[in-house]
């Protein structure tokens, strides 16, 4: 290993050009695609105006990949598709073929590698997720372990297109929501349930008190002094455990093995198809952190998937289905208790009250 600069030192080269790694069939038909067809779960066929056909074989990946696995993907790409491949916005891997005859052999090799083929159309695709205990200081829970546990339980819905519509699950390990879970059909969100524990000795050295105070959305942090130095105190009843104070100040750690855990949210979506994009809404306020398999979380997600796939009409996303049948039915069918936590009490709370006589019985 060396620290000597390779000459010349390049900066601001930016990413590779957008067309640098495109397969020839894509270059030729760029912007000239006519339609696509379903072939099988995990296999798409795009047909160009020219008549050319591009076959995509999609596989599920754990996102956290070792270079060994990436090299195996590269080998498969060389073997079946001239070395061309891509990843999707949900961390799946896609092989881009022009030879339909290569599809089945590729699928067999993927199976041998343990890569499930699927994730297309009305299947459950990969879970968008975040770092968790693998790399983040802020995590109220792990990410990869829950994702693995949930996808193990749902894998057959990845490999079969058996949902009423697309079903998208995401996980974020804290309220920063790096996984942007807030618009998912099902969202799993790590939560704290204890106020920060102020590290009084550390605080004056590592944090700016005014920044810290203004970081709190509910004004729970007040100035205080500690041994003559500027410090803060937390009004515990005003704290709703968002951890933003910890983000700006390392001396306000939040984690608490007994009280941290997960919440489950449902009915969000991103696409503009049919209904407008919308946020996910609270389904379960708290489930405990039970590694390595988080059985309560897996059970809850599976329950939602089952109830949804049984009751929704074709083309109804989770939120659209609930629109039609109503939230009371959602809670009745899933058996999840409806609690005081489900009723919003933040800034725009009043707008979520049921301000009509539209009631289902």
């Amino acid at each position, binding site marked *: 290993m060396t620290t000597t600069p390779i000459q010349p030192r390049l900066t601001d080269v930016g990413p590779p050009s957008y067309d640098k790694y495109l397969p020839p069939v894509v270059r030729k038909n760029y912007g000239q695609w006519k339609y696509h067809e379903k072939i099988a779960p995990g296999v798409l066929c795009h047909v160009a105006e020219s008549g050319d056909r591009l076959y995509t074989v999609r596989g599920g990946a754990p996102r956290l990949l070792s270079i060994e696995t990436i090299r195996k993907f590269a080998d498969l790409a060389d073997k079946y598709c001239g070395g061309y491949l891509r990843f*999707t916005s949900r961390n799946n891997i896609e092989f881009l073929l022009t030879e339909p005859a290569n599809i089945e052999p590729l699928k067999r090799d993927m199976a041998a590698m343990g890569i499930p083929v699927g994730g297309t159309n009305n299947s459950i695709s990969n879970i968008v997720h975040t770092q968790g205990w693998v790399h983040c200081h802020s995590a109220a829970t792990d990410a990869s372990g829950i994702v693995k546990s949930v996808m193990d339980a749902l894998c057959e819905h990845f490999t079969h297109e058996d949902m009423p519509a697309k079903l998208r699950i995401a996980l974020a390990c804290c309220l920063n929501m790096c996984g942007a879970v807030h618009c998912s059909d099902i969202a799993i969100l790590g939560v704290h349930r204890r106020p920060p524990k102020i590290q009084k000795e550390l605080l004056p050295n590592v944090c700016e008190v005014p920044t810290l105070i203004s970081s709190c959305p509910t004004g729970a942090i007040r100035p205080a002094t500690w041994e003559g130095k500027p410090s803060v105190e937390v009004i515990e009843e005003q704290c709703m455990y968002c951890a933003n104070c910890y983000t700006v100040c390392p001396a306000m750690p939040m984690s608490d093995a007994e009280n941290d855990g997960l919440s489950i949210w449902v009915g969000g979506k991103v696409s503009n198809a049919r209904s407008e994009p919308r946020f996910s809404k609270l389904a379960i306020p708290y489930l405990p952190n039970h590694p390595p398999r988080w059985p309560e979380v897996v059970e809850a997600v599976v329950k939602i998937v089952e109830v949804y796939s049984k009751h929704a009409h074709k083309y109804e996303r989770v939120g659209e289905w609930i629109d039609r049948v109503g939230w009371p039915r959602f809670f009745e069918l899933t058996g999840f208790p409806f609690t005081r936590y489900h009723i919003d009490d933040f800034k725009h709370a009043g707008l979520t009250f049921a301000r009509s006589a539209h009631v289902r019985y």
Partner: protein
Amino acid sequence: MADAPDGKKRANGLPDTKLLDDLEKGPWPSFVTEIKSAAKSSESARDLLGQLELSYEDRKSHWKHGGLVGVLGYGGGVIGRYSDVGDQFPNVAHFHTMRVNHPAAWFYTSDALRTICDVWERRGSGLTNMHGSTGDIILLGTTTDQLEPTFQELTHAGFDLGGSGSAVRTPSSCVGMARCEWACYDSMKLCYDLTMHYQDELHRPSFPYKFKFKFSACPNDCVASIARADMSVIGTWKDEIQIDEREVANYAAGGLDIAKDVCSHCPGKCMDWDGKKLSIENHDCVRCMHCMNVMPKALRPGKERGAVILLGAKAPILQGALLSSVLIPFVAADELFETIKELVSRIWDFWDEYGTNRERIGELIQRVGMPAFLDAIGLDPVPEMVSAPRDNPYIYYQTEKEGEQ
């Protein structure tokens, strides 16, 4: 590698991971297997495994708040990370990630991937995320001294760092024209062009907070831009949906219940199927994509294509999550690059001046009010910007300016 201080036994040089091992079972590919695979040749991957097992035991993260580390002349692209059990796991005591700007829509050749793997084998843990939530190639874990050499090897291989901190973040785009019949503008090229244009803002944080761009070439929004980008550019069209009557008939013949499966879900309530002919009142169509999604062979977006520009999405903290909202209802495809550049510079000027520390653009607009924001960036209000006009009568009339109407 020696036994860890807590004396856990290790088989094959790997730490004893009773809890994690359970996650190697089951049909879904296992991240534990991936870490173990890297751990065969990487000491840091091995210690990561050990520390993660410890987290599984105590149900908490063992990472400390990050510190500022990076490469020469860049203010971002690296997330500093330190272990709070570095004595037990010295090889992850420092374990920084590098964010590498991915190629548009995540296209690679096998060679490109191998190049990255080779660099990361030499310089880091051998672990990656393909990809991070913002879109970067995440090179997961290395030490401070490896940052600069890794960077140099990457730039020579044609890769550069992505964003972090209060900067432009790595823009990302859907696969668009490369493979999708619905692309209404060239999302990959626009993403690339703007990324190049904003190299300085990307590498040298100088904003009140982060600024994200995402580009989806049609309203299906396959990069979730409306939920995750300060500026979301979503393809659409202005003229009439193209109908292939013959293919409509084929779908009907093939068993599709057009009235129920297509028309009844149309949010514009503008489709009519009389059993023979499909008619669309394009004036009322909200460009949602549903009908095309269901009948891709029969229906296609119109020919006058471009995009809606929306502003302001973000995650919940501080004032609650936001979705982006319409700023310009339609910009023609060939004017997007110039329009966005011009618009963004006005937006950033205002944000620079009025944004408080850690205030995303969406929050700033909420704070000062959309009318004031529009005044500031010199854009006229149009009804497309709102889902509905105000319903409260608390209007700040500006009678001096307007005089008697």
